[in-house]
């Protein structure tokens, strides 16, 4: 009998607030975290909005590391991790540090550190670049900082699987627990608002000028954002033994690679990830009560994702509510599927589904139930979390109500 894996704690820092409860309430209320970009000057850009986290104070979350010596993505990640552990309600001193691990995903790691290097390079004053550039920049420091701050000395892995990284991290942590390599795993994703990412998507013409409207007929693109989410995963037996609460059970995942194009997805890959996840969790399409869509708001993604869902779910596709919280918090990159995994766990736990905001007109090619504009109270037995990334990486993860 394989270990069953429970989600027992949730932490998140997002453009619509921080902490499980605040984030969840704001998403259900359809609040939007998109505003004018402040972290760099967008005067030379044709777009100017982003989903930045304003007024984030990382200080209260740090007790081991010096917060001023840690990049912003790490700060967001540590905050989410601290919240998640507090939410799980276990006494950190009750865990063997060697049996507690961290797997995190990201798109860009600590991009601000390389952007600062680039500023100096262009200004011709590279001598101003200090030792912190190369020690703070590499993306693996995010999982490392989380582990150092919480003194988790077990398995530690960083998975930079771009926009599907959160799901990749959850998938890996799931296997680590199942193979008995840890008692507790923190898994999630983090990215800070990046000039490089913004420039790239702007250059591709992929950024919407004002609002993010996934699946809407007049959708104009995605909106880059930042954030972090961390889920506490534990073997079910262990949670039951300590009497901990359970949001959901993680029951499986599917990964696939398109091997088609770096930035243009191929719908077969997405379908293979979804089918793989269903098989892995021994579920049929009609069991699924909610899909958290990748739903970036670009014309192509939303059309292709819709088509992939139809391919896997058949007629059942029309009965599954599928929403995109990117309509409210933008595309938080490596954090996105981690935040969306938290949403799936909470949907399963509370039987509420967050809406796709800013939905006005139906696209004939996107004709599924996208939960337009209003949250819904509806039983969710099984939820599927979809994520797709540059490089043709696809990942779907399944969460279910936990029947111990």
């Amino acid at each position, binding site marked *: 009998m394989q270990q069953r894996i429970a989600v027992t704690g949730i932490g998140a820092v997002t453009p619509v607030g921080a902490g499980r409860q605040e984030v969840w309430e704001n998403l259900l209320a359809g609040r939007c975290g998109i505003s004018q970009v402040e972290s760099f000057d967008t005067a030379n850009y044709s777009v100017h909005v982003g989903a930045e986290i304003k007024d984030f104070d990382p200080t209260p979350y740090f007790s081991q590391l010096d917060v001023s010596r840690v990049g912003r993505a790490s700060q967001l990640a540590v905050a989410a991790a601290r919240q998640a552990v507090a939410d799980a309600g276990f006494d950190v001193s009750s865990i063997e540090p060697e049996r507690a691990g961290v797997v995190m995903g990201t798109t860009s*790691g600590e991009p601000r550190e390389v952007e600062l290097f680039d500023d100096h390079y262009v200004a011709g004053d590279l001598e101003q670049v200090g030792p912190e550039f190369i020690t703070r920049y590499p993306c693996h420091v995010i999982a*490392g900082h989380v582990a150092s701050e919480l003194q988790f000395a077990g398995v530690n892995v960083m998975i930079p*699987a771009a926009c599907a990284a959160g799901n990749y991290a959850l998938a890996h942590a799931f296997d680590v627990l199942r193979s008995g390599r840890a008692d507790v795993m923190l898994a999630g994703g983090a990215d800070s608002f990046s000039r490089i990412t913004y420039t790239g998507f702007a250059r591709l013409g992929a950024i919407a000028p004002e609002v993010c409207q996934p699946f809407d007929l007049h959708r104009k693109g995605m909106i880059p954002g930042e954030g972090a989410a961390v889920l506490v995963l534990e073997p079910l037996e262990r949670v039951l033994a300590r009497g901990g609460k359970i949001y959901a059970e993680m029951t499986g995942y599917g990964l696939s690679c398109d091997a088609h194009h770096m930035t243009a997805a191929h719908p077969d890959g997405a379908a293979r990830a979804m089918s793989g996840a269903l098989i892995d969790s021994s579920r049929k399409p009609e069991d699924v009560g909610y899909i958290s869509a990748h739903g970036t708001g670009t014309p192509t993604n939303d059309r292709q994702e819709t088509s992939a869902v139809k391919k896997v779910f058949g007629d059942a596709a029309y009965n599954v509510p599928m929403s995109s919280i990117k309509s409210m918090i933008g595309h938080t990159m490596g954090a996105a599927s981690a935040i969306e995994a938290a949403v799936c766990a909470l949907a399963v736990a509370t039987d509420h589904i967050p809406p796709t905001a800013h939905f006005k007109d139906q696209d004939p090619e996107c004709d599924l139930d996208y939960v337009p504009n209003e949250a819904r109270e509806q039983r969710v037995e099984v939820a599927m979390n979809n994520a797709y990334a540059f490089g043709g990486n696809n990942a779907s993860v399944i969460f279910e109500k936990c029947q111990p």
Partner: protein
Amino acid sequence: MSPNQSSRRVVVTGIGVVSSLADDPADFHQALIKGESGIQPLSLFDTEKLGPCVAGEVRDFDPVKYLGKVNLRPVDRAARLVIVAAHQAFLASGWTPELRQEHNVGLVLGTMFGSIHTISSFDRRALEAGPKYAKPFDFANSVINAAAGQTAIWHSLRGINSTVAGGTAAGGQALAYATEAIRTGRSDAVLAGGADELCFESLFGFHQAGLLAASGEDDACSVPFDTRRNGFVLGEGAGLLMLEEARSALDRGATILGEIRGHGNCYDCSRGQDERAAEAVRRAIGLALSDAGLESEAITAVSAAANGSVLGDRHEAAGIAAAFAEVEEPSVTAVKSMLGETLGASGAFATIALLESMRAGVLPGVRGLEEREDGLGLTGLSATNRELEGRLGLVNAIGLDGNVAALVIERMNAQELAQRIVETA
């Protein structure tokens, strides 16, 4: 921890190497036992800002030599290294393009930076010329998983595709990740290893951080475990191992080179700063041994991660000594003495070097080792080559700031593997 419970064994059926020493695993081993060094004056880019530099560069790297006349424009140097190493590994293991169409082959790539050069160049172009002139090709390659994605496209790899970052531990972590993907039944065939490129951005960054053995200085020394050491020399390359589930590999008549017997991964919360680093090395070795169901006495050779860093080498030595405290210490080699610190590739290179050493029966010495640091406690360390009779070896892949991975590997041929499967059935 208890031994791995999966009945699915993970074997190596082919190796791809693109390195400063050689582009073939047998030549790679030959160069190592001849004590050749890939570390030479840097020619890849201008180092005016740093003064004269040495590096373990893949000189005159020309993908066309391997791939034929192809359009490489969309692919950056980091990805080219991986694409060529993958090409070599597929040739060696018999994974033809036709076979790759029939089966979903996975790829797990360890890397420290992806391509920081591409990322930085993209950003600088936008700063200098304006964001409208940023290059879309560069943006596609600016994600850290770009090399894995490009390689998947190039070679039609539709299985799991993961990039693992763990600094200089990434290559070892990637091999462990792929091993689990096969053990759990999620994949039957996964190409795994690591890669990083040499570039100005990382070289300059390490230089500013004072981590490099000062180039051009008379006292510069990057010899692992040597008391004179004062930093590492940066290198580059790609090393990939074709990993397969043992039965399916035997069924298709594959050449068997070895087996991944166990792996361990843990974290040093001091981030390389104090004795917890040594303890983490000991723990990772212990985890890998118990995963393999072996005691420390079974190990006859260790391929160390030591790169010439003052603290890092000391902690690794202490960790190895503690892990083998009760038994005769195995022979220890450190191939970064010849390759430099190849970052994400290093764990894969250390693995390939050890597997080839066990197959050939000769373990390379640590090039340049003259004065062993007092109190290191590594009796198995030697400047000269040693005969190697054992079939089980240990690989360390250790990060600069906390990540530690260890692998237990065994040399194995198809006949031995078939016998082993019968015995354990």
